[in-house]
């Protein structure tokens, strides 16, 4: 299945739930509503034509106006890759855990929770992961994070 065929298939299979975004890149990027995340993920994994059985990565982006959670998945039997994102508000960001679909999500979601402050619902082991055990200074990957010890790179004229 080529990228174009994948786009066509997803457009017919998920006409409402997945929105194709204009990125200017060859690989498609979709947007999924936070409420439909689990439903879409389960369908992507279980669909016989797609079989997205491998979670490559979960990333988070702080655009200073909103948080974007980017999921990269792959299909090992069908040799496909797909990216989609979920847009969350910056304050009170909360998302469903996808670890019941892809167990690999466990650590990525812990990292996301710790560094970006995204609350992950129904996660079975949400505790400190990368930061020091006694860390109490908030979520350092947020753009507005600051600390007396934190030195920003000086502006270059």
């Amino acid at each position, binding site marked *: 299945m080529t990228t174009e065929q994948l786009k066509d298939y997803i457009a017919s299979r998920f006409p409402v739930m997945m929105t194709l975004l204009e990125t200017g890149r060859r690989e498609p990027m979709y947007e999924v509503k936070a409420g439909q995340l689990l439903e879409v993920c389960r369908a992507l994994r279980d669909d016989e034509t797609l079989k997205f059985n491998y979670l490559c990565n979960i990333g988070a982006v702080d655009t200073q106006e909103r948080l974007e959670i980017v999921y990269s998945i792959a299909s090992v039997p069908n040799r496909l890759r797909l990216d989609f994102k979920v847009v969350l508000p910056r304050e009170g960001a909360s998302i469903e855990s996808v670890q019941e679909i892809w167990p690999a999500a466990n650590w990525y979601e812990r990292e996301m929770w710790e560094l970006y402050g995204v609350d992950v619902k129904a996660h079975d082991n949400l505790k400190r992961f*990368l*930061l*020091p*055990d006694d860390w109490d*200074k908030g979520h*350092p990957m947020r753009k507005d*994070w600051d*600390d007396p*010890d*934190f*030195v*920003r*790179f*000086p502006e270059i004229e």
Partner: protein
Amino acid sequence: MGLIKKLPVYSEKIPGGAIVTTSLESVLHFAQAKSLWYLLFGTACCAIELMCTGASRYDFDRLGMMFRASPRQSDLIIAAGTITKKMAPRLRRLYDQMAEPRYVIAMGGCTIKGGPFYYDSYAVEKGIDHIVPVDIYIPGCPPRPESLMEGCLHLSEKIRRQKLLDWQEK
């Protein structure tokens, strides 16, 4: 290279006998300075240079420096590489586990002032002298083996120059 300087500093051979008198201080510090066993503590790319220095081309052993895998057997920590805030308590703990007299070499920019991670990093400790007392700083990113060896020679000299039980005041 002048490695062996004035073996026992004040020594006197008693005529007709095989006895040499000298001061405890000079012999003790001579022995300490010539057998610095260092703890294997490589946390980043400086450790590659440290390994290179330890291998046959540069041959750290000829300075009497051998790596030990346990802090209990070490005289020296060569902190080779970035120390993160999460790693810092571990470094302190390893330092505390070493028997005195103990010495620390800060190898590379990261251990001196955070190096390339000084800006925009929430995770990297800006200099290990916040955590443990440092005897020798070796700048570089990473320093070449020659720099590391020179730093170790300077440390040897420093040990030779100290007074008896100086380290207790540290």
